[in-house]
């Protein structure tokens, strides 16, 4: 017998049962910043707090935070803890770019509901077996590590019928990381075109959602949304494995409790 067999058994089952059972690590995770008080005193000055320009202040002094630009610097939480806090848990993904705004823009509710219904209809056939393809469109390398972690024994996405595939021809879901480097625009488009329908695209990480700190660079497109159509937007710098798993399950309609519900 290979000496590795007992080593694999020694620690018993280390795999999470999430989402069927709650997992304290998933629920306790510190996600992007969120707004606790949307109408604070002195709201007009708050926009300057964010080094990634995620905070905007309206004329009436109300503040809004774009989690799709939040790089988790924590400046706003440290400076104005009564206005900003950390979001908790893995559920940060949204089905529309505007869905990452906190507080939600009322006008986007209808568009979100429509996006949800359209995605549900499109992915009805993907429920039980899902194949993933990943493309790096200019990431810092951290998102890849977190996606790869889904294969380790703790997350083990094979238990959910989710597998990685080498060929875009066999892929249902495209995970895209990075700020949309110009050099990757064409390979990304070709990969997307090579996938059969129905297909779902998940933008993984703040850089993929809006370029993050690289927004405005001569070499990137401020996120991948300008290159291929994105269905699920997942902020985070980088998003941890549970958040990526949450976004995946949301994308294929296996989760009843996304942030949009």
């Amino acid at each position, binding site marked *: 017998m*290979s*000496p*590795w*067999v007992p*080593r*694999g058994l020694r620690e018993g089952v*280390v795999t999470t049962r999430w989402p069927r059972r709650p997992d304290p*690590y998933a629920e306790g*995770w*510190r996600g992007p910043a969120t707004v606790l008080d949307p109408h604070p005193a002195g709201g007009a000055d708050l926009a300057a707090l964010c*080094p*990634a320009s995620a905070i905007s202040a309206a004329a009436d002094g109300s503040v809004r935070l774009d989690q799709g630009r939040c*790089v*988790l*610097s*924590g400046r706003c939480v440290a400076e104005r803890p009564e206005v900003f806090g950390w979001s908790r848990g893995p559920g940060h993904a949204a089905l529309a770019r505007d869905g990452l705004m906190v507080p939600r823009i009322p006008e986007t509710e209808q568009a979100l509901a429509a996006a949800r219904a359209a995605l549900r209809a499109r992915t009805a056939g993907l429920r039980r077996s899902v194949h993933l393809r*990943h*493309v*790096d*469109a*200019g*990431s*810092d*390398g*951290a*998102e*890849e*590590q977190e*996606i*790869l*972690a889904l*294969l*380790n*024994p*703790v997350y083990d996405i094979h238990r959910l019928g989710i597998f*990685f595939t*080498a*060929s*875009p021809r066999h892929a249902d879901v495209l995970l895209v990381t*990075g700020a949309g*480097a*110009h*050099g*990757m625009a*064409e*390979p990304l488009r070709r*990969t997307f075109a090579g996938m059969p329908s129905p297909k779902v695209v998940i933008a993984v990480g703040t*850089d993929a959602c809006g370029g*993050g*700190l*690289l927004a*405005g*660079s*001569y*070499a*990137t*497109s401020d996120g991948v949304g300008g290159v291929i159509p994105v269905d699920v937007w997942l902020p985070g*710098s*980088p998003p*941890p494995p549970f958040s990526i798993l949450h976004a995946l399950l949301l994308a294929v309609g296996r989760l009843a409790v996304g942030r949009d519900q």
Partner: protein
Amino acid sequence: MRPAGTGASPSRLIGSVPELWQAVTGSVAGGSRFAGLMATQRPGGVLLSAQLATPAASAAPAGIVTCEAAVPPGDGSYPALTPLLGAAFWYEREIHDLFGVIPAGHPRLEPLILPLGSERAAGQGGSRAPRPRPGRSGPEPAGIWPDEHALPRHVMGAGLFTIPHGPVRSGVLESIEYLVETPGEDIPHLNMRVFYKHRGVEKRFEGRPVADGVLLAERTEGVASVAHALAWCHALERIADAAVPWPAALVRVLHAELERLASHLDTAARLADGAGLAVATARFSLHKERVMRLVGRMCGSRFGRGVVIPGGVSALPEVSGRELQAEIGRLEQTIGSDARELMGTSSFLDRLRRTGPLRPERAREHGALGPVGKGSGFSDDARLARPYDAYPALGLGEPGHQEGGDALARLRVRWDEVHQSFHLIRQAADELGEASAGALRADCPAGDGRAVGWAEAPQGEVLYDVRAEDGHVTRCGIRSASYHNLVLFHEVFAGDILTDFPFIEASFGLSVAGVAR
């Protein structure tokens, strides 16, 4: 702790480019290591800055010395360094991409990180083509798109063909293209294209408040977030002449070593995966997950982001000293046991032995960094040679010596480093328990000036060459270990076949993000 050689970094302006190369090659012949070549756009022309890692001498401690010379205004070219010093091969290609100046006499001046088709149309100087020109003030240039047609394709010899491998490869990997030229199984020649994920990071530093730079540094090369933040902050601390408080210096060491553990475990898992050892792959990726969760519990980020700030650290670990020691003890025991088993699994060792050999004399000549250099008997670990933060006071232990130069030697180096890291983490946690009262941050005013900062990432030494004016960054040159080491990939395939490729790539353990920036 005051970093070695505080105050302004030594930099020398030399009259002309040929004299600069004379100084550089002379210094390298005298025992210095060529650590990088950067350029900066000045109103009058391009300034070339060569970085040299100098050994300790009676006059000065070991450090990084910068020698500079300007390309005369109006000249679109300068005599190349590469014919005199092969290690400058990629550096000069990159300078050509970013600034359009031509290193005359460069053996193969192909685009590296930003291919631009307009180069030939714009004539010899290339001055009309839009180039990023880091260091130039004013607004960032509008979108610059790489042009693949600017890249030649070489295939030579009867029966040879090219396998284009990338940029979208099988598996979850960063984007890079390997052009493998092969008659069928051997790999006589290999070309790399790293431009795909060029993000223009250095230009994004410019104009940013100095205080925000650390966020971008952490996101330059994600797998070495802490090391990049350290190198950036060391440069700023040198400009401000700030001394990092002792507890903060300890916290920095804790995070830097945990990052090294995670990275080396990742390499071990990839190598085991390549050899088809499913249980070993699962074990090492489980260990890595545990290390990353520990880091996450300590600071809220699985990559240690937000900990290192100019002048110190943002907070103490959110994990008690006893808890940290207990977790480290458990990890050390289980990782050590699995590592011993792996190094005794013959089917695994057979795949690594004599795979991807880097000759010791080439490693020395090139100044190969990190485990790649150490595996070939060349070691210039910044933690030992140019120590910073709490390293001068902590014992690194006896470094193991390897000179096999193959993938196996590089893995052995990593296990030695893992052993060392545990030793350092235990010491730092002990010291921190006694010293946790006190300031965590020294005043580090965003002054004017220029300095070089360095730190030892899991991949090897990272260098930041920072210039600041009025509290804003005017130029930030970044040289990651991945950049310096990846070029050696050209020469390690002697006698290897296609199926050795994943082992060689994993044994280098580099990140493309740090190369293409």
